[in-house]
């Protein structure tokens, strides 16, 4: 297979992994963000946590595999992205550890204080993780101070300004909305009624942020629309994105929460696609000099490795898809507490 095509396929596959991660971990991060506000007593908190109990670990694997695949297919991009976001990534890792252990340890001891501590930990780590992912995305969109030989010359403070912060807020609201719809599917009775009200409010918050960030991107990130201007067919992405956003309240109104969940997944997929379209053919843009950009061409592995990896992916991904389906099937239906729950 030709090298250019292989490179592009790997760019697409990474997009698929990142989208898969955002859709799947998106809802469980959202559940973590909503957890202290929705559940009233310990039983409800456990219901909320156990709605994602068997699923969150597998969801997080998408991020781990994305990291591994980026390392293998575009090692330069991997090295540059992670060393540039040094401090932010350590905070993100702290959050991911915090989430894992909050879930795992919360119900292991019968003490209200113990549980409260892990509840706070679960919320804070979910919220911060979602926010940091958004901030990182915003920075990558807008470009960063990359110097010669892919070395980052900025610092943590140059990553924190209004645009990435707004993208961070957008991500938090999107995941919270996505998580709320998921919880609506998994719960019953009074708890479900409460979630229904929250969905409406979250939708308004998200919709406003969505508009604001869209306008901000036009103003602040002019290169984001270049690809769309060059290939007008790509207009279909933002268009479908907007339609998907509007379809969420419609689906909820029609009383089809499963359809609403599918729609919010599509919103995430469309946003991830827009992100990829905006940065293509780069991974990271240098605000100092375009010659320092990390591009698909200068970041990729050898043709042999991309080929081997494609074989690995072709064998592995159907297996992954089948386990995912099996697990979601086994744990389908409303969440119930039993002796094995958190």
């Amino acid at each position, binding site marked *: 297979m030709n090298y250019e095509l292989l490179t592009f396929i790997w760019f697409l596959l990474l997009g698929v992994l990142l989208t898969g991660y955002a859709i799947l971990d998106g809802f469980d991060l959202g559940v973590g963000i909503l957890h202290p506000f929705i559940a009233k007593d310990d039983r409800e908190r456990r219901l909320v946590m156990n709605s994602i109990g068997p699923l969150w670990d597998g969801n997080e694997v998408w991020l781990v595999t994305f990291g591994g695949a980026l390392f293998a297919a575009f090692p330069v991009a991997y090295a540059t992205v*992670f060393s*540039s976001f040094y401090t932010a990534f350590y905070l993100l890792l702290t959050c991911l550890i915090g989430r*894992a252990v909050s879930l795992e340890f919360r119900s292991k001891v019968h003490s209200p204080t113990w549980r409260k501590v892990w509840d706070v930990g679960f919320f804070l780590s979910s919220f911060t993780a979602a926010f940091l992912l958004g901030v990182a995305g915003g920075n990558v969109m807008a470009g960063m101070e990359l110097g010669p*030989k892919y*070395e980052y010359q900025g610092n943590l403070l140059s990553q924190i300004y209004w645009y990435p912060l707004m993208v961070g807020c957008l991500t938090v609201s999107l995941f919270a909305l996505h998580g709320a719809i998921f919880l609506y599917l998994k719960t019953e009775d009074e708890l479900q009624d409460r979630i229904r009200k929250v969905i409406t409010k979250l939708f308004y918050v998200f919709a406003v942020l969505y508009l604001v960030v869209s306008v901000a991107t036009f103003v602040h990130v002019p290169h984001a629309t270049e690809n769309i201007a060059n290939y007008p067919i790509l207009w279909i992405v933002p268009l479908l994105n907007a339609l998907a956003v509007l379809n969420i309240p419609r689906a909820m109104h029609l009383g089809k929460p499963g359809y609403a969940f599918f729609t919010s997944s599509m919103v995430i997929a469309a946003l991830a696609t827009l992100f990829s379209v905006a940065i293509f053919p780069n991974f990271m843009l240098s605000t100092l000099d375009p010659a320092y950009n990390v591009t698909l061409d200068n970041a990729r592995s*050898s043709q042999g*490795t991309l080929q081997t990896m494609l074989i*690995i992916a072709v064998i592995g991904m159907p*297996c992954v898809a089948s386990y995912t389906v099996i697990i979601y099937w*086994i744990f389908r239906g409303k969440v119930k507490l039993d002796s094995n729950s958190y």
Partner: protein
Amino acid sequence: MDVEILSRLQFAGTIMFHYLFPPLSIGLGLQLFLCELAYYRTRNPAWEAAARFWTRVFAVNFAMGVATGIVMEFEFGTNWAAYSRFVGDVFGSALAAEGIFAFFLESGFLAVLVFGWDRVGPKMHLFSTLMVSLGSMFSAVWIVIANSWQQTPAGYHIVWQDVQGEMMPRAEVTSFWGMVLNPSSVDRLTHTLMGAFVLGAFFVASVCSYYLLRNRHHDVAKRCLSIALPTALAFTLLSAITGHDSAQKLVETQPAKLAAMEAHFHTSDQPTGLTLFGWPDAENETVKFGVKVPYLLSLMVYNDPTKPVPGMDQIPEDERPPVWLPFQMFHLMVGLGTLMIGVAGLACWFWYRGTLIEKRWLLWAVVFMPIAAMTANQAGWITAEVGRQPWIVYPSVQDGVEMMGLKTADGLSESVTAQQVLSSIILFSIIYSLLFAVWVFVLNNKIQHGPESAEELTQYKRKLKKESMAENFSRSGKALGGDMLDGGEQ
């Protein structure tokens, strides 16, 4: 302190902490599978109680392994960007294969293993346990391959790339299978897996011995011991054999590491003796208080007592690893290994005679063996990793062509400052100390609570069946032990 020292400290610290958990998961996974297989074959509720109990212990440990493992994957990019660019073509594919072939398998079926007891049938549950256990082994396979490639690289060549006007080298794969089956990956993998199986077997044996000493959970403890003791003996013996194989290869592939492990400073034409213990002093190139057995090192390395082994003086001065740490850690590992073979052998013997329960001293010895196994695993890791310094990727010779390696000092991220690394070390020291405390606390809770008895379990299942809906059970229910439902709070 400079970025290099700090980054090395950080990597060593985070990976040693991480490495507490995966070997235990791998080892415990196998024991859990054997227990569940026994349940599947006999349908005896006592086996089920045992399997459910080990599942809970396994889950706590697995969560820690996952949480600390994610850190490792990103640390290559954050702290070792130059290294990542150099090896990405090779190392990345192993890491990606681990994600696709191992992590998805483990994490998917872990859900069924932990949460599926009352949802799927015994056959599906047994299958899930097998998948989780295999997944954790596959994960070891790819990680050990990636590590081994750095120690004995093969199947690659060096390509010089123009990076904005400067030519920079990087390794590119020429043969995938050559990379995977590099000269040390098989030996290293079998030795690593055996180390993990030893830890798992001793962990189960330890908890069961503790129950026998405390006169609790007799039925489950005896059953599990009948699996754990023989496997502990078999795996300790196998790890001695695989370890010996690994060490023998070093004279070809990493003579500097071998010389460091044995504190063998001076080459001579005489047969080489083996230093049993001592205090190596690299500056004066001597071993203080050393006790040496003549001929033994030559015999061990070459199966020939007269052939001399090359010493540290054969290695260029700027390519010599530290000696003290690899020497002591290697000897500690071998010493603990011998101790474990002894304890496992004795325990099996008295078990066979039916008198183990009377030998309280031996039961106590078994109780402490997981610490020995864990220490041996860590010590082996330190020997392997410190012994390869100053190389992060060893130079190698392929088809007569010398391939360049990469020194640890050249693998760093240039954009990262000492300040940043230091703050992440402080942050992670705090988090990891807390985690460790919580892990010990929760694990202890689980062990103190112990398995349900067969009757309790049968009753629980009958009730579950009758009320069919688990939630009703939770509302009406008397909690079944500390791990079961806490219905009392409503």
